[in-house]
């Protein structure tokens, strides 16, 4: 048998079936592109509007028609920066976020290590429980928490607020660090043991250097969680307000352009931080892109 069935002539019209398959593939591509575009706009447009208005003069902000190009007028931001209480609130925010960051790593990373390395009874239940803390509505907790804080004298303190924020950031810290530790082959630790290390030495000399960029990223994420949090901050502090709580309180009655300036000051650091650590946040959900 040397003869083969003739192929359809080049350029011949494809059958209906092929045409339909091609149409379907094209439609799918369009659908994906449309959804991606809508999601991007949904996030980017408000941020863009905040930035444009923060960088415009007060008259431009309240005037009509709107310009979509900022005039880079710094007076709103300058006024906002000089406003009484802003500097203190900013400092409080940084301090609460810093304490949250340290606490959630110090407590969360060992939990993550345990999840990654050990098999123990109730491991999956623990994993879900960690996430469930996020499902518990904070407003429900706020009143008893405030009462308890007043009783033990933690009310209106930076430390007290940091505790609450640590609880909010913990699930992420645990899950991100667990996936980091899972990424370090156990064989490396075992090799270190055979080379003269104790369990702790092997962790410090081998595991820690390998996960430290990821640990830093999850620390930054905890920082952002605290930085963005407004409800607990508003309920639990009066004098020592964080920037979010302060803005909620003061800007309610401020002119529009100051609201935009405040929003920009809040949004920008969080955005920059998250952008810097984005690849580790993917790792949290098990998408390996490293």
């Amino acid at each position, binding site marked *: 048998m040397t003869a083969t069935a003739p192929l359809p002539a080049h350029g011949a019209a494809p059958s209906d079936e092929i045409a339909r398959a091609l149409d379907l593939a094209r439609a799918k591509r369009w659908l994906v592109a449309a959804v991606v575009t809508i999601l991007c706009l949904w996030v980017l447009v408000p941020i863009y509007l905040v930035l444009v208005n923060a960088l415009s003069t007060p008259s431009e902000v309240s005037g009509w028609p709107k310009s979509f190009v900022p005039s880079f007028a710094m007076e709103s931001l300058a006024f906002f920066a000089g406003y009484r209480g802003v500097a203190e609130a900013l400092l409080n925010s940084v301090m609460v976020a810093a304490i949250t960051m340290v606490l959630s790593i110090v407590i969360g990373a060992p939990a993550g290590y345990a999840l990654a390395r050990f098999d123990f009874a109730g491991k999956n239940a623990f994993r879900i429980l960690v996430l469930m803390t996020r499902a518990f509505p904070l407003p429900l907790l706020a009143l008893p928490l405030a009462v308890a804080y007043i009783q033990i004298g933690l009310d209106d303190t930076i430390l007290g607020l940091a505790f609450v924020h640590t609880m909010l950031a913990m699930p992420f810290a645990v899950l991100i660090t667990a996936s980091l530790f899972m990424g370090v082959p156990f*064989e490396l630790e*075992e*090799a270190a043991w*055979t*080379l*003269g290390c104790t369990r702790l030495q092997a962790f410090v000399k081998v595991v820690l250097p390998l996960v430290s960029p990821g640990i830093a990223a999850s620390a930054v994420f905890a920082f952002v969680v605290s930085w963005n949090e407004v409800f607990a901050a508003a309920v639990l502090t009066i004098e020592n307000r964080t920037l979010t709580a302060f803005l909620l309180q003061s800007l309610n009655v401020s002119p529009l352009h100051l609201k935009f300036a405040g929003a920009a000051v809040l949004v920008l650091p969080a955005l920059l931080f998250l952008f810097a650590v984005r690849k580790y946040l993917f790792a949290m959900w098990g998408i390996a892109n490293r």
Partner: protein
Amino acid sequence: MAEITVAGLEKSYGSFTALHGIDLHVEDREFLVLLGASGCGKTTLLRCIAGLETASRGEIAIGGRRVDPLPPRARKIAMVFQNYAVFPHLTVFENIAFGLRMKKMPNAEVDEKVRRAATMMHIEQLLARYSGQLSGGQRQRVAVARALAMEPEVLLMDEPLSNLDALLRLEMRAELKGVLQESRTTTIYVTHDQVEAMSLADRIAVMHGGHIVQHASPLDVYRDPATRFVGSFIGNPPMNFLPATRTTAGWEVAGLTMPGPAIDAHTIEFAVRPEDLTPAETGLTGRVKVVEPLGAHQLVTMDVAGHHFRVVLESDLVVRPGETLRLAPRPERVRWFDPTSQTAIDRSLVPS
């Protein structure tokens, strides 16, 4: 002196028993290969000796010193892992120096020992690199150099060549043998590759189902398999087995009567290696099914009395599928097995 003694070692995981009372003695400077199919317990045994697994029962001694209650770092062992376990955040130099630095050795001495180990494994030019910049074979060399630099009493290797491609594996095998002969360190080497085991070992311990079924020199394991499993696991193609029935004149195997062991049984098993048969006037008769030329030899698969039977013959003999062949087994290479216990029948019972 660093001989290894394992006595009554048991390991179970819940209801699953991985090791059933292992007794093993490895001489000082001996190269022992633990050979077995996957899941036979060979890696578990190695990890127990390394201290990475805790045995459920039994004792392990290295150089006369009981080590089983000690952590890995106190056992004076070094281990080469299947996936090399080269630390990715350290250079090759620091990888090899890792264990020496843990011993708080002065820098000059560390430097000297690292260089000596690196020279032995031919990686002197790679010392400044990171493992991400190395090929699989190079990582393997680093792992071996790191273990050798420790100057351990015992070197443990867990399938160190199984992740290399075939050609590299052959090259590394020969090189490893040379290096280890020179270092004269007591070595336990785990593999599932019987060719690797034959070519490297002073002695082989064959494991099956959590037991050591035979512990002998490579040639003894090959020539005199202690169990049917060893005979069929070692050797490629494996040993041939045929049922044998008692007759007044001896044992009848596929129509051929031959002398056999003087034991009181009705049926036993006849076994012979594929290369231990020669074409003859009288012998086992079978129909040729497949002929595979292998260059120097040809592998002929036959049907002998309804059983699969393989022979390795000289390649100048013309054999065609469908033909009938008569093959005489070399009498001194014939082995007999007890089909109930699956073990070899004592050769002193066989008249020579």
